[in-house]
């Protein structure tokens, strides 16, 4: 790709296997240098990275190579360059969350998910751009400027994990970690033509992930293929004593399901017939469903009426939790503090006014209002009751089908600036993703062709809680179909 050394374009398992084999000339150091060179060359056009961590990556690569040389196993991700969303903690590396309010905050500890990836041999090449505090669907809300879509730099990469998506799509790193609170892994994956997976809530530790909405947040993998994404998920999953919501689910590894025996759910409320610009995504859904039926899989038509309420429910629950989680940014413990506060209250209010961007303020206001005296019953409690009822509808649906297949987004990527002044239009971008977070379900987006203007589309496979392996098994079949799967963008730098 791009005239660079192409070992970085191998499947992750093969890349790591060559590094583990000390008789093979491919080393972790060589992979890391290739990744850093690509970032150096390409990222001026995309703005995917907020910080490059070349010294750290070289140190980690040297450790992997030393292990391989000594005959020890450096792990299943040996030498694989990894991009990390900048809301995950790496000790000693400044963490911004795409916000000015954290200043030069330096985390004292590891995010468990990142540490596990590194223990498996991955090498961190940089921290990626995001919407401030992961609040957004376009990566335009970063205090450090937008990221651009590698398939067309006038377009958004999606968000909030837009930096991670652009880094993988452009070949700068084969793997990236993102976080998904309402679609923030799957939506940018779809818009950038890569694979992105939101695991079952509780499969991956949230320790060291900066909290946005704690009952919805989940860390997950982004990669060029399902096999690569699955390899990263297998490395980071599992119970963590530092996150009491983690659970010991069966591994997400391949479980050899017979596709012909599956019932493929279609949710009536996910149809895009009335959505302007929704035709290509709807056509992609029909195409992959037909192909699945050719394998012997059967059709299950379902109606989940409460899916239509998922945007209102999400935009009450997530901001309510955020307004509480973001109370800690008060000018006392972290980064930025406003000058000349007359008293403590004044210090808080002025620090937060200066430090937070527009979208974060908007969501803090929505959440504070939804929780405030006189309104909490009508908004927050009603949203939580509706969320519980929605989850019950998904439980019933998964009695009638094994997986659900839908589009990931109603449309392909939109132009940078197009929705910047219309927050409600931006929120509606999440209409096909938020329900998985509200119900705690695993869901993966895989690339499924492009629109006439050459912009990628994604198809989403949803499963019952804990069945992340099944979701990947089905998604792998879709990925292998004609016109689906990862395609490198033309270099635009």
């Amino acid at each position, binding site marked *: 790709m791009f005239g660079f050394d192409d070992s970085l374009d191998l499947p992750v398992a093969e890349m790591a296997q060559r590094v583990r084999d000390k008789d093979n000339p491919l080393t972790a150091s060589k992979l890391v240098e290739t990744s850093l060179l690509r970032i150096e060359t390409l990222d001026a056009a995309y703005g995917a990275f907020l910080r490059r961590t070349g010294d750290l990556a070289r140190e980690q690569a040297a450790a992997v190579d030393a292990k391989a040389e000594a005959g020890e196993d450096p792990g299943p991700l040996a030498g694989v360059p990894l991009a990390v969303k900048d809301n995950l903690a790496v000790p000693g590396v400044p963490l911004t969350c795409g916000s000015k309010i954290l*200043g030069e905050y*330096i985390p*004292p*500890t590891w995010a468990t998910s990142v540490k596990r990836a590194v223990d498996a041999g991955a090498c961190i090449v940089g921290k990626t751009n995001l919407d401030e505090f992961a609040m957004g669907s376009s990566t335009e809300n970063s205090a450090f400027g937008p990221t651009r879509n590698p398939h067309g730099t006038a377009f958004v990469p999606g968000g909030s994990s837009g930096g991670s998506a652009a880094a993988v799509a452009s070949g700068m790193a084969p793997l990236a970690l993102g976080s998904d609170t309402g679609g923030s892994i799957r939506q940018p994956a779809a818009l950038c033509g890569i694979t992105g997976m939101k695991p079952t*809530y*509780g499969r991956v530790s949230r320790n060291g992930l900066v909290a946005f909405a704690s009952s919805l947040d989940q860390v997950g993998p982004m990669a060029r293929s399902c096999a690569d994404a699955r390899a990263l998920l297998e490395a980071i999953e599992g*119970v963590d004593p530092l996150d*009491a*919501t*983690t*659970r*010991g689910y069966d591994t997400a590894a391949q479980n050899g399901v017979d596709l012909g025996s599956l019932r493929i759910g279609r949710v009536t409320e996910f149809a895009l017939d009335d959505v302007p610009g929704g035709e290509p995504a709807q056509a992609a859904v029909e195409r992959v469903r037909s192909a699945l039926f050719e394998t012997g899989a059967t059709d299950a038509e379902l109606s989940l009426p*409460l899916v239509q*309420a998922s945007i*209102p*429910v999400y*935009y*009450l629950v997530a901001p309510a939790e955020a*307004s509480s989680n973001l*109370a800690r940014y*008060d*000018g*006392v*413990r*972290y980064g930025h*503090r406003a000058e000349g*506060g007359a*008293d*403590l*209250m*004044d*210090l808080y*209010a*002025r620090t*937060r*006014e200066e430090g*937070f961007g527009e979208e974060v*303020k*908007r969501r803090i*206001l*929505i959440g*504070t*209002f939804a929780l*405030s005296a006189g309104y909490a019953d*009508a908004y927050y*409690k*009603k*949203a*939580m*009751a*509706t969320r*519980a*009822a929605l*989850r*019950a509808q998904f439980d019933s649906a998964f009695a009638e089908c094994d997986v659900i297949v839908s589009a990931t987004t109603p449309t392909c990527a939109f132009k940078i600036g197009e929705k910047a002044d219309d*927050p*409600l239009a931006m*929120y509606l971008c999440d209409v096909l993703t938020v329900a998985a977070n509200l*119900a*705690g379900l695993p869901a993966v987006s895989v690339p499924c062709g492009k629109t006439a203007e050459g912009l990628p589309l994604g198809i989403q496979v949803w499963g019952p809680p804990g069945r992340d392996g099944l979701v990947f098994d089905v998604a792998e079949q879709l990925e292998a179909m004609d016109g689906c799967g990862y395609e490198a963008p033309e270099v635009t730098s």
Partner: protein
Amino acid sequence: MDIDETLVRHVAKLARLELSDDEVTGIAPQLAEIFGHIDQIQQIDVGDMDPATQDPITLEGLRSDEPGETLDPRSILRNAPQHDGAFLVVPRFFDEEE
């Protein structure tokens, strides 16, 4: 739900946000539009569904209370905007007489 500038100022105070007049003017109609969409949940009948249900968050048990390494206080203090080497420093909020 009617959301006007007075309500926005009240909520901003609760949220410890000092919004400028321009911000209040800009945000009030946006929040009114957003809540215009959100208000559709008032039409939903969820019967006696308990809003406090913990699912999908089920705790498998809490970790045992065992002594272990803790963070170096310096690694915390160095991130604070103002400290005296042992404590975080904030503006005085009690008068001497109190």
